[in-house]
């Protein structure tokens, strides 16, 4: 009898604890991992070997957040910057997209130049025949409507296949 009741008790206790957790505001607790607020959408590139080609690296900013563009309006703001380790690749002509206007609605407000949603950084890449990895990091500083996180660097790692 005891063996039968124990699992039943546990099964009933879990939803009770969950309900109590919500009632007490437990789900408001900041559980967000020290995660990135930008993700890399490009994981591989197929190129023609030994020929300069224009490619785009796609990134996406987490909904509800914005990051400064490569050329923010205020000199105190931290620009988004992609730093790549070329290795055996030849990389040139790195181009950032223009930012979008964003109005920070606090007090008198402030006009910002930001990236939201998806944005792409263009590069001209020349790769030798074979497989290699393009690696580096995207440094950015994210905010939402009321607060900001310190600058972080998103690791960038892209498999390059040149034939």
């Amino acid at each position, binding site marked *: 009898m005891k063996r039968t009741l124990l699992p039943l008790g546990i099964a*009933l206790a879990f939803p009770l604890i969950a309900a109590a957790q919500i009632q007490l505001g437990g789900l408001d607790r900041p559980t967000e991992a020290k995660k990135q607020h930008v993700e890399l959408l490009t994981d591989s590139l197929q190129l023609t070997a030994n020929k300069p080609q224009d490619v785009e690296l796609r990134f996406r900013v987490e909904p509800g957040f914005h990051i400064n563009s490569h050329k923010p309006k205020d000199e105190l703001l931290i620009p988004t910057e992609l730093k790549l380790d070329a290795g055996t690749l030849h990389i040139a002509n790195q181009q950032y997209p223009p930012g979008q206007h964003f109005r920070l609605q606090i007090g008198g407000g402030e006009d910002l130049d930001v990236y939201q949603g998806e944005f792409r950084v263009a590069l001209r890449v020349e790769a030798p025949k074979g497989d290699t990895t393009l690696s580096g990091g995207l440094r950015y500083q994210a905010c939402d*409507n*009321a607060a900001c996180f310190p600058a972080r660097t998103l690791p960038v790692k892209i498999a390059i296949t040149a034939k």
Partner: protein
Amino acid sequence: MLGLVAVLFWAGVHNLRHRRALSEANHIKLIPAAPASSATNDSGLPDVEGYNLRGKDAPSFTLSDLSGKKVSLADFKGHPIVVNFWATWCGPCKLEMPWFQEFSAKYRGQGLEVLGLSQDDGASRQDVADAAKKIGVTYTILMPDEAVAKKYGGVDYLPETFYIDRLGKVVDVTAGAPSKDEMEALIRKTIAAGGA
């Protein structure tokens, strides 16, 4: 039993949604009164333990001001104090700081002291001073020290403000910029909390 659980769950979700909506409208992050986990949380937000300073003694610190002079929290014993963590690269911080300036003047007669703790790691004293001047604040600005930020829960989410009464107790904590009215209400609450 199952019916009770269902009712509790529904009521909790409803309550949570309501509080979140209020919070979003106010641009303030809700801070749990009794967080369950310890400072080992590696959240992108400040450590939960830091949020739990309300009602406790404000952690002591000694930092350098913009002239290099050492300033301790204990220097302001008997005063209501606002300890505001900010950074030069934080837009919301810069927008709320003029309000602290205004309120520091308005409530000076009641002893209010505002301390702005820069979180600009690696920035020079001159960089921080230039930024403070540009923002238009003249209250005490202190240079960063990671150990102090840790005492206040990590402060990985700016602005973060601790309202401390005359007895040195943390009356309230906000993460994110509140409205000007909310900020003033918190200051008044802090002034009233420790007795005049």
